[in-house]
């Protein structure tokens, strides 16, 4: 199961299960569902950003040198980025253990 920061009981759960704080989905780290992870080959990457655009969990961030780096706290291992990369620069490798 996924890790969440706020585990609450039925007496403390918010009214109607409403969320009062916008953007709090960052607290919901989906990374531990993953069975495989994307690994980037910088030699092939052209910094086009397709991986960043297609990732459904917005797990990619651009670094100062222009490459896109995956945040494994949120990557669920779906492989969409690897599939969409026009240069086959991303390989999905199984998570061990």
């Amino acid at each position: 199961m996924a890790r969440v920061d706020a585990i609450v009981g039925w007496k403390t759960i918010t009214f109607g299960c409403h969320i009062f704080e916008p953007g709090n989905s960052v607290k919901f780290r989906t990374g531990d569902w993953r069975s495989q992870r994307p690994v980037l080959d910088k030699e092939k990457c052209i910094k086009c950003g397709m991986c960043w655009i297609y990732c459904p969990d917005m797990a990619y961030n651009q670094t100062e040198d222009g490459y896109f780096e995956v945040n494994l706290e949120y990557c669920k291992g779906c492989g969409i980025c690897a599939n969409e990369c026009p240069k086959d620069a991303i390989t999905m490798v199984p998570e061990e253990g």
Partner: protein
Amino acid sequence: MAKRIGIEVSIALAEAVKLCNVDVIAAYPITPQTHIVEHLSELVADGSLDAEFVPVESEHSAMSCCCGSSAAGARTFTATSAQGLSLMSEILYIASPMRLPIVMVVANRAMSAPISIWNDHQDIMVQKDVGWIQTFAENGQEAVDLLIHAFRVAEDRKVSLPAIVNIDGFTLSHVIEPIEIPDQEDVDKFLPPFKPKYRLDPRKPITMGPVGIPEIYFESKIATNEALKASKKVILKAWKEFEEIFGRKYEPIDAYRTEDAEVLLVTMGSISETAMTAVDVMRDKGQKVGLLKIRLWRPFPIQEFRKAVGKTPILAVVDRHLSLGGVCSPVASELKTLYYKVPSAPKIFDFITGLGGRDVTVEHFEEIVDKAKSFAKRRPKDYYHYIGGREK
């Protein structure tokens, strides 16, 4: 002074909705609809009710629209029946945990097939677990009163849950009865403006209806259930205040001639009036028979029911729903659970009757009481019994 007039119950209900000054009515306007929303659409069209009337393309959309408008802070009403209620079902489950105080009248009718537009409780009994407050009206006056009460309770900040007022289809919805339409002034005194705790507001965005991952779903359901159970207090208090303002008294369970009774009939809805006549007839013949009418169905008034039963040895439960393939039908099933292994519990027998608009007569109630008495002496082999259904 409120005037008593002869009026169709559906029209009276629409007038009561107007008195409650609703903001939004969303409804599927054709079969299986009643005159309730038809009349409301007229009231909106002729300008006598300042509300938004949304004629949607299905009951599923009607309830979805109601959820949206209630979430935005609008006093919201709809009505439906039978198959229409089934089509809403998916969204009924959404309104309650989201704490949206929508009020709905359900004109209880049979479920097709075969195609039926007549009365029984099959439509609502499959929706008993949706988390809505539910009451059953016995006559037109009660329907109007329960409707006004429903808005008051549902919108109370301590409750904030949707509510259904059940009225028997045709037997109530399409008949003309003498009804006292309350004065606007009194309704305003009883029903304050709707001020929800939270509402959708672009200036202060919140999320309603988020995903409930396994870590939170269970707690969310418990919270809804506990809120529903706790609503009984507010329901009772509101009925007390209703009595003070309008002079009519309502309780979760109505007891009729129950003193020293050997058998108590248990009914819901309009057949309770026939049952009262039947009790009078049987009492005249010297039989010790009484009647319990369940007005509040959800949350179920456990203590009040137990108190009303007292030491009565036999309960004859009249179910107007058939649990196909089940052990017995919902009302009897819950009452049997309520008394399971309770010392000196009454013997409870389940009678299925009045399906699809079949009349339930005084003679049927006499037959029920006779059977219940003989079953108490000799345990029947079946868990429920059909009354008035021909075999050949």
